[in-house]
């Protein structure tokens, strides 16, 4: 039953809001605030956490979970199906083959390549959501958040859920299929409690601060490789929607010229243009507005 209310998200290690990730983000946030006392007032203010936009995030989280269970998940193919199709395609095209490498090498290769490909497709789809006008209509729902909190991560239109679902099964399925084709049953992932080690480390290092007002940034060198929480907040800033599309790695933004260092942006203002915000102030509007947006100009 808890599935229908989205409560299992907090005890599921595969979810962004898994309680351990929330706790680690809280600890990091507190450490940050102890050094940056001036920001304490804003971050601990009830105005922030009970802001109309935040309250909408909380209620939308439960509703969107229901939509995902009832409409999205049954549609999205299993990555196992994609993996099997990939294996059969490769076998039919190139014949049967086995590459002989040690378990350890295959483990490291599979874990890292899966993570890199997954992160790249995430970057690519995210960028498309901003650059293709039709997709931007749906992604605007996410950017309509006036204030950020960890549940803003789930303020996503079901159509976007569907697209990310397809991205996920395609990238997972194809990479797994190629590896199984090459290495057979030797394929395995280095995981921590069932999650890819890279994803686990990233998640525990404050992934929930991406959607928050904690302006945690990394040294410049590190920000060419990893997206810091503040870099993602810059992406949510009205002036820089077209920057920092990356999920975990910043290298894609760096390579494709969409990168913005934390040091380059002093202030951020979230949400959409003032005149558009009224179209995203209720659950119904979040769901319906993208379909009747022809009258609204693309931002």
């Amino acid at each position, binding site marked *: 039953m808890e599935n229908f209310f989205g409560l299992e998200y907090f005890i*599921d290690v*595969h*979810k*962004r809001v898994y309680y351990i990730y929330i706790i680690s983000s809280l600890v990091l946030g507190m450490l940050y605030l102890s050094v940056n006392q001036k920001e304490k007032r804003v971050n601990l203010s009830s105005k922030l956490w009970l802001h109309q936009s935040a309250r909408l995030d909380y209620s939308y989280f439960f509703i969107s979970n229901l939509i995902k269970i009832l409409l999205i998940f049954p549609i*999205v193919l*299993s*990555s*196992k199906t994609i*993996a*099997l199709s990939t*294996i*059969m395609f490769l*076998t*039919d*095209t190139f*014949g*049967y083959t*086995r590459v002989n490498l040690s378990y350890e090498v295959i483990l490291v290769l599979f874990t890292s390549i*899966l*993570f890199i490909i*997954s992160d790249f497709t*995430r970057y690519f*789809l*995210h960028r498309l*959501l901003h650059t293709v006008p039709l997709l931007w209509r749906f*992604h605007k729902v*996410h950017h309509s958040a006036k204030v950020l909190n960890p549940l803003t*991560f*789930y303020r*996503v239109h079901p159509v*976007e*859920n569907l*697209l*990310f*679902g397809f*991205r*996920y*099964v395609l990238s*997972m399925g194809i990479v*797994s299929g190629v590896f*199984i084709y090459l290495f*057979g*049953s*030797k*394929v*395995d*992932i280095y*995981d921590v409690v*069932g*999650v*890819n080690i890279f*994803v686990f480390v990233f*998640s525990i290092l404050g992934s929930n601060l*991406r959607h928050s007002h904690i302006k945690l940034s990394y040294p410049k060198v590190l920000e060419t490789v990893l997206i810091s929480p503040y870099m*993602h907040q810059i992406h949510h800033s009205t002036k820089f929607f077209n920057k920092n599309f990356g*999920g975990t790695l910043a290298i894609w933004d760096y390579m494709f010229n969409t990168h913005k260092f934390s040091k380059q942006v002093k202030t951020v203002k979230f949400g959409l243009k003032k005149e558009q915000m009224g179209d995203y102030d209720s659950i119904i509007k979040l769901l319906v507005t993208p379909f009747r947006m022809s009258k609204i100009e693309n931002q």
Partner: protein
Amino acid sequence: MYKHSFKTINALEYALYTDGFDDRRYELSKIIVRNIINRLDEINEVYVSDNKKFLSDFKWTNDVIINMLIDSSFKLRDWRVGDIAGYSRKSKGNADNKKAEYFISANSTTAIQSILDTHKQIMDAPTYDFGDMLIENGLKKEVQLIRNEINNSIENLKYLKNEDFENKEVKILYVSLDKLHRSYYSSLVNALEINTKILDADGD
């Protein structure tokens, strides 16, 4: 060793079944048979002497057997049936009985039967087998599918009449061998649990 023993069997076939069989060929055949026996004895010795070592690392043993079954099912499907009957990608629709593995002696069907019987012994034996072990590891549905496809393939061997791969009915056998090959991979994909090891599929 496995690969070369087959080559030797082909050599024996050539010596015994082509025209011009004489005393010299008879002597040569005896040498080839001795070689085959020696090789099989060597294989047997390794199985017996290294049996405990082989079974000591469960994952490795499991991998070796699954990879072997997948490899064998691919060769059955493509090399031993598809390429000859014209159903594999490589053959491009050109059926040619002369490409059969034991065309000279007309023993290709027997070879396919033996290989399928071996699959059955491993996956669907009357006593505890590899299939039962996989079922204990949560792959009941997949093993049932594999067992069905092995039995279907054995049943569909009847469509390969008189070593005639050019007969259109052979496609029924090819399709069941294809399903068998896929079912092995399917069990492998399910066993690896690749679906669950990355964070949720939402946006950002």
